[in-house]
């Protein structure tokens, strides 16, 4: 029972990490209607920047804030310069392909600009754990959970209760009509990319104490984050969090209890989960079906 409880907590802890990145994926999807395969690399790049600043003597929190701001500016700039030329409201494939190129470019750029070594970044949360009987709940996991829950709530609020959020959703739902009403679609796309990159930077900084800082730090995580977003439904911030936690728990339980799976095969589990969910409920657990009449 204790082992089970500890595994549950461990699963939820890594689930928080997946959820953090899944939120960024959902944000880009809601704000621009497309997927950014370079989401993890952009976050990794910002994380390196944060590490560099701490390396230069900055305290951690200001360094993270600077990284988040840099993420916003960088994300918006990437949209304006690299994505905009291939942006087409009817066909998302070119954008997705370009983000794939961006992924590779950022990967080598980070290696060249910063380091190919593995670095460490401190945690903004207190170290140590909360003891519940024999079960240890790391403070950092609690902190991460609080932060992603707050971010998820903030995202929902922005999309559903502010004029900016409404303009973003309208702009994705029918780009031409949105423009005819005076909604500046290009500005919405820039803000969407900027905000998602900022969120990614924050997520990366918060998970870095566990993953360490290196060019591939989020590669595995991103796959699970996509699984989480799929599970939760691509358009739901709450779904991203719940999906992340479920994937984390599932992964820990499967590799813990199903002997032959181990760590290596847990990616397979993720894939199986995606396929099963999409077969049973194509919109994910929290996603809403498209209301478009065909």
């Amino acid at each position: 029972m204790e082992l089970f409880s500890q595994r549950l907590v461990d699963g939820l802890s890594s689930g928080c990490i997946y959820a953090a990145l899944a939120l960024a994926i959902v944000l880009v999807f809601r704000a621009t209607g497309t997927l950014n395969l370079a989401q993890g690399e952009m976050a990794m790049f910002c994380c390196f920047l944060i590490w560099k600043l701490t390396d230069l003597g900055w305290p951690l929190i200001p360094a993270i804030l600077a990284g988040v701001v840099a993420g916003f500016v960088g994300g918006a700039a990437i949209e304006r310069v690299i994505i905009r030329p291939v942006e087409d409201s009817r066909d998302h494939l070119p954008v997705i392909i370009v983000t794939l190129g961006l992924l590779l470019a950022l990967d080598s750029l980070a290696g060249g600009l910063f380091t190919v070594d593995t670095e460490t970044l401190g945690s903004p949360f207190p170290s140590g754990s909360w003891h519940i009987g024999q079960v240890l709940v790391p403070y950092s996991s609690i902190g991460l959970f609080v932060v992603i829950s707050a971010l998820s709530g903030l995202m929902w609020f922005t999309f559903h209760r502010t004029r900016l959020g409404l303009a973003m959703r309208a702009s994705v739902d029918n780009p031409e009509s949105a423009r005819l009403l005076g909604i500046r679609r290009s500005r919405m796309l820039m803000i969407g990319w900027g905000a998602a990159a900022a969120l990614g930077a924050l997520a990366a900084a918060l998970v870095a104490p566990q993953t360490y800082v290196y060019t591939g730090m989020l590669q595995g995580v991103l796959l699970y984050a996509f699984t989480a977003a799929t599970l939760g439904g691509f358009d739901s911030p709450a779904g991203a969090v719940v999906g992340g936690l479920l994937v984390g728990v599932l992964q820990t339980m499967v590799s813990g209890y199903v002997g032959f799976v181990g760590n290596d095969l847990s990616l397979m589990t993720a894939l199986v989960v995606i396929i099963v969910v999409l077969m049973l409920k194509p919109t994910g657990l929290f996603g809403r079906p498209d209301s478009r009449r065909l």
Partner: protein
Amino acid sequence: MSAPALRARIEAAGYGRLMVLRDVEIHVSEGEVVALLGANGAGKTTLLRAISGLVRMRGTVDLGSASVTPKSPERMARLGVGHVPQGRGTFPNLTVHENLVAGAAARRGRLDLKADIERWTTVFPRLAERMQQNAGQLSGGEQQMLAVARALMGRPRVLLLDEPSLGLAPAVVHELFDKLAELNRDLGTAMLVVEQNATAALRVAHRGVVLEAGRVALAGAADELRDDQRVRQAYLGL
């Protein structure tokens, strides 16, 4: 006489190297409803889209005192062009209420949207019953009314409507055009209505303009066009 609500002088407009419109001039006076008629492919949609900045054009569009060459729809919306596109163009995954709020996107400052929403849902009571439903679940007629109400939320100086009767049952078309006439009478909203359904359009319009292969073939008072036997056969298919 005061300046017209809208005057468009289009030297040329089209898609890439295909020129659809040549030397078209059209105006809508304050408080006037103009029906823009013509066969399929005559260039009616292109004309509206050129005015809104969705199709590249050479020429000028005057709105009140402003005179511009339309470059972006966002800008034209801010100058007071309300455009209900062909096929309605509602936001299917947004609620009726959200569609209406989005209609006011071009307006600045603190807005009393409640009052505006109440006003248009009084005109279109069927929308009031469906405020929290997604627009994609409405019937065709309801979506068309939503599209009109949404455009009115932006308080346009002139309202462009592209084939509002498309795909609607005759009774619904009748109801819709009654509403348009009522809006024009009560608020004085200037309208340019593109229609294939000439009978419906000329019933509420003051003037009619017939477009043929990208040029103005004929223009005149609505009742004259309606009664002219030659016009009826050649252009209106009546």
